[in-house]
C-alpha cells in the first residue's frame, strides 16, 4: 500500500463530506483514498487541544443537520458516535432580563408567558408548522435534486414530479414554505410573535453564518435550513458530539478506514488531472497531482472543496462551459462569521441566576433584540466587524466533562458580524481587537467574565479560509440563498454532483443540500457516482 498510486476513487478534502463520500465509496468496494492538506482530517469539524486538557471546537461546534441515515449506513455508532443532547436555550436580555427555554413544552409555555401570553401559544403553532414544513422537505433534502435546465425527458419528468410533489403538500405547509423562500425571518416572526426577546432568539437561526440581518429577505431560508435537522427524531433540536465535532469526524475517519479506505494527510492537491476534450469526446478525469508533484491516478475524483476551488482552482476554468464559470464566479461566499473560543477557570455567572451552570447546556444567544442585531448588521454593511456582536455561545463542558480539566470549562462563541472584507483594515490587524470586543460583550452580560478567561482563541473569516480552505471563510461553502440552493447549488444544471469533466465529481457543502455538518452532499454524490457506474437501464 505504501507507494500505491492507483485508486478506484480519490476524494479531495477530508472534511465531513469528503469522509462521508469516501466511506460510501469504500463500502461499495471501491479502493478509495482521501487526501487532506492538513495534518488532521475533519475540515471545519475538528477539535484541538490547544492547551492541555482543554478541547477547543475550533470551527463548528454542534450537530443536528447530520442525516440520520448516514449514521445507519456507515455504522457510525460502532465507531464511537455519541451525540449528547443540548437541552436549554438561554437568551439573556437587557437589564438582567432573560428567557430560558428547555425540553419541556409546558414549562416553555409559562416561560414565554412572562413576556406574552399570546406568544406562548403562538410559539407552539409556529413550531409545529415549521416541523411540518421540514418534514415535507425531507424527501427533497435526502435525494439528488432534479436538473432544471436539461431537456432530457428523464430530467423533465423529474421536474414534473417535483412540481407535483410540491402541489400535493397541504395548503398551509405550502404557504409557509413560500414565506420561507420569499420573506425575511423577521417578517415571518412579526406575523406570529410580539416578544422582541423571543423573536431575537429565534431569528438567530435565520442570520447565522450568513450576510443577512433579521429583515434581509434571504434570512427566511437560512432559518428554515437550520430547522431541517433533528435530535433523535425531534425536529430542529441540536446536540454536542462527544469530544466536539472533531470527535465526530474522527468517527467518520474510523468508519472509512474500517471499510478499507486510506487517508493521506499533509497531502494538498494542486491539480485535478484530466484528458483533453476534443472531437466530440468530453474530457475524462485521470487522477490528481499533489502539491509535492506526486501524481495519483483514479477514474473517479471527487472534490469535497467549495465550488470556487472545485471549478476555478483544481481544474482550468477555461476547460469548462462559460455559463458554469460565470455562475461560480458570481456564487456568493462573503463569510461574515468568526469564532472566539475561551478556556475558562469557572462557569460564567448571570446575575439573578447566580451559579447556574444548567443555563449553558445548549445555546446561549447574545443578541437581545432585533434592533441590536440590525445594528450589528449595519456595521457589517459598512465593512467593519460589529462593535456589539451577536454571539452564539456553547459551554460543552457543562454536559461533557471530558472537554476540560475538572472544574474548568471551555466556551465556544460563534461571532457575527465579521465581514471577510474589511473596509479600512485587515484581519491580521484586527484579530485581537475582535477578541477584545467579544470578551467585552460577554462581560456586559456575565459580569466578571474576564477574570475567568485562561486562554482565548480568535478565528476570523480569514483564518477559516487559510486553515480550512473555505473561500472567504464562508462556513457553508457558499451562502444559503435561494439563487444558490437546491436546483442551483452550486449552479443550474450542475447541481447533481457531476462536473463537465467525466469522472470528476463534487461533494462539498457547496452542493445540495448545503452547509452545516450534514453529510448529505457526501452521501448523495456517492449515490450519483453509483448511478453513473451502473450500465444504462441496468
Amino acid at each position, binding site marked *: 500500500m505504501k507507494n500505491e498510486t492507483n485508486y478506484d476513487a480519490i476524494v479531495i478534502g477530508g472534511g465531513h463530506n469528503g469522509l462521508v463520500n469516501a466511506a460510501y465509496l469504500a463500502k461499495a468496494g471501491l479502493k478509495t483514498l482521501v487526501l487532506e492538506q492538513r495534518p*488532521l482530517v*475533519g475540515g471545519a469539524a*475538528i*477539535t*484541538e*487541544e490547544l492547551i492541555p486538557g482543554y*478541547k477547543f471546537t475550533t470551527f463548528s461546534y454542534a450537530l443536528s443537520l447530520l442525516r*440520520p*441515515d448516514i*449514521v*445507519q449506513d456507515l455504522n*457510525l*455508532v460502532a465507531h*464511537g*458516535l*455519541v*451525540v*449528547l*443532547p443540548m*437541552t436549554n436555550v438561554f437568551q439573556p436580555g437587557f437589564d438582567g432580563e432573560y428567557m430560558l427555554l*428547555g*425540553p*419541556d413544552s409546558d*414549562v416553555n409555555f409559562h416561560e414565554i408567558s412572562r413576556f406574552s401570553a399570546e406568544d406562548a401559544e403562538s410559539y407552539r403553532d409556529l413550531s409545529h408548522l415549521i*416541523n411540518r414544513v421540514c*418534514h415535507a422537505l*425531507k424527501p427533497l433534502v435526502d435525494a439528488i435534486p432534479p436538473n432544471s435546465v436539461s431537456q432530457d425527458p428523464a430530467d423533465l419528468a423529474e421536474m414534473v414530479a417535483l412540481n407535483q410533489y410540491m402541489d400535493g403538500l397541504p395548503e398551509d405547509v405550502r404557504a409557509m414554505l413560500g414565506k420561507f423562500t420569499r420573506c425575511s425571518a423577521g417578517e415571518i416572526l412579526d406575523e406570529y410573535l410580539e416578544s422582541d426577546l423571543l423573536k431575537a432568539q429565534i431569528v438567530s437561526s435565520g442570520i447565522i453564518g450568513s450576510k443577512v440581518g433579521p429583515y434581509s429577505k434571504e434570512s427566511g431560508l437560512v432559518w428554515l435550513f437550520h430547522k431541517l435537522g*433533528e*435530535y*433523535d*427524531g*425531534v*425536529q430542529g*433540536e441540536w446536540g454536542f*458530539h*462527544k*469530544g*466536539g465535532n*472533531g*470527535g465526530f*469526524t*474522527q*468517527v467518520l475517519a474510523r468508519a472509512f478506514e474500517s471499510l478499507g479506505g486510506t487517508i493521506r494527510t499533509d497531502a494538498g492537491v494542486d491539480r485535478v488531472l484530466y484528458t483533453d476534450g476534443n472531437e466530440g469526446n468530453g474530457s475524462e478525469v485521470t487522477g490528481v497531482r499533489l502539491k509535492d508533484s506526486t501524481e495519483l491516478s483514479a477514474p473517479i475524483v471527487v472534490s469535497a472543496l467549495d465550488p470556487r476551488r472545485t471549478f476555478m482552482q483544481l481544474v482550468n476554468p477555461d476547460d469548462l462551459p462559460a455559463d458554469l464559470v460565470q455562475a461560480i464566479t458570481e456564487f456568493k461566499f462573503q463569510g461574515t462569521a468568526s469564532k472566539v473560543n475561551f478556556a475558562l477557570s469557572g462557569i460564567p455567572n448571570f446575575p439573578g441566576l447566580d451559579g447556574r451552570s*444548567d443555563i449553558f*447546556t445548549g445555546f446561549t444567544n447574545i443578541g437581545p433584540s432585533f434592533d441590536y442585531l440590525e445594528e450589528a448588521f449595519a456595521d457589517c454593511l459598512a465593512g467593519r466587524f460589529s462593535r456589539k456582536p451577536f454571539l452564539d455561545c456553547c459551554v460543552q463542558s*457543562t*454536559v*461533557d*466533562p*471530558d472537554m476540560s480539566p*475538572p*472544574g474548568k470549562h471551555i466556551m465556544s462563541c460563534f461571532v457575527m458580524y465579521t465581514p471577510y472584507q474589511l473596509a479600512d483594515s485587515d484581519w491580521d490587524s484586527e484579530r485581537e481587537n475582535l477578541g477584545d470586543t467579544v470578551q467585552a460583550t460577554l462581560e456586559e452580560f456575565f459580569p466578571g467574565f474576564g477574570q475567568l478567561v485562561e486562554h482565548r482563541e480568535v478565528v476570523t473569516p480569514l483564518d477559516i479560509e487559510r486553515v480550512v480552505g473555505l473561500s472567504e471563510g464562508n462556513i457553508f461553502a457558499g451562502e444559503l440563498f435561494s439563487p444558490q440552493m437546491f436546483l442551483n447549488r452550486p449552479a443550474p444544471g450542475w447541481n447533481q454532483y457531476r462536473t463537465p469533466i467525466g469522472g470528476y465529481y463534487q461533494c462539498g457543502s457547496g452542493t445540495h443540500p448545503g452547509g452545516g455538518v450534514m453529510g448529505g452532499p457526501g452521501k448523495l454524490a456517492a449515490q450519483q457516482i453509483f448511478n453513473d457506474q451502473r450500465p444504462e437501464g441496468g
Partner: protein
Amino acid sequence: MPQTTPFHDLLTPYNETGIWKHWSGYLVAPRYQFSTTAEYYAIRDSVSVLDTSPLFKYRITGVDALRFLQAVMVRDIAQCPVGTAQYTCWCDPDGFVLQDGVIMRVAENEFWLSAAEPSLRYFRATATALAMQGVGIQDITGDYGILAVQGPHAHSVLAQLTEAVDSMAYFELAETAIDGCPVLVSRTGYTGDLGYELWIRADQAQQVWQCLIDAGKDFNLIPVGLEALKMARVEAGLLLLGVDFESSRFAWVDAQRETPIELGWRWMLRKLEDDPRDFIGRAAIEKQINERSNRWTTVGLSIDWYDYERVHLEAGIMPPKHDLYCESTKSIYRRGDKEWDYAGYATSFLFSSILKKPIAIAKLPNDLAKPGTEVDLEISIIHKPANVLATVQRMPFFNPARKTEQPTQPTQSTGRISS
C-alpha cells in the same frame, strides 16, 4: 402515607419537575430534570447518582448462612468469595423464578442481599423448613440507604472519597469509610456501565451525600431518576421484575411464571453437572434443560432502523424516538406466508439514544431465538397495528469495556478525541 428514603430531603431541591412516584411505598423521582435523555447521558457520559434505598435489604448470618443460601439460590454462593458479590435468583419448587437480586458476601458467614420485594418471612420460613437453625435473617431495609454512582466518571468521583475503589474489580466489595462514616461499596449497578453502589447508614446519609456532591461537582454529577435508569438497564440487557417477568409468588397461572432458563439465565447454571446442591426448583429446572421444554427464550431484539422510519414516514409522521421507553407488551410474529402468525412478545421497548435505534427485550420460542433470526414486531402507528422488522441479538446491547476494566483516574468516557 408513602415513606421517604434517607436521601429524600437532600434530593428534593434537585427535583425540578416536582413529580414523585412510589417504589415499594417510598417516594422516588422518575426524573429530576425535564429531559430524561439528559439524565440518561449522565449515566453514559459523565456520572450519575441514583437513590435505590427502597430496595429490601437483608442480612443473612450464622454458621448455616452459606448452606442456607446454597439451598435457596440458583447460583452456588460458595463460588462467591468473601469481598465479592453475586447476581442470582431464587425459585419456587416448580423452578419458577420468585426474584432476582445481588448478594454481597461481606464475611465468611455474613451476606447482605438486596431484593425488589419483601422476602423476610419467606427466607425465615424456608430456613425452618430446611431445619437450619444456624442462620439468622434480619431485615435491615430501614437501617441503610443505597446510592448508585454510575457512569464513566464514577471512579473519578469516588476515588476522591475513598481509596477502596482504586483496586476494586467488577463485582468486588469493600468496607470503607467516607468522612468517617462506614460505607459498604460494591462495584455493581443496574446500568451496564462503570459504577458503584454505596450502602450508607441511614443516620449518616446527609454527611456522605454532601461529600459525594462535593466530589462530583467538577464531573457534572447529577441525580437521575428511574426513567433514565430503566433506559440504561434495557441497553444492559438487565431484566426488571414486574416488567420483563413476574414473581411466581403472586402469579395466578403458570403462563405468568418463568424459569431461569426462560429468562435467559442459563448462564447461572453453567456448571450444574458439577454442582451437587439440591437448591429449590433444581429438579424442575434440570428437567426443562434436559428436555429443552422451556416455553420461551428471553432475547434481545434489534429493530430495523430503516423499517421503523419507513412505516412512520409512510403514515406522514415523524418516527417517535426521543425519550421513548415503553413497558407495555408488544406482540411478535413469525415472518412467512401466514399473516399475523403469533410467535411471542416484547416486554421492554426503548429507542436507544446511544445506539441510535430501537431495541427490545422479548420472549420467543426456541426455534426463533437464535441470534440473527428475523421476526416482525407489532407497533402502533396512528392507532393502527403495523409490523416492523426486528432481528434477534445477544444481550447486552451496550457493553462498554469500562464496565469491567480497571479505571484510571480521571476516567475518560466514551469517544476518542482528535489531536
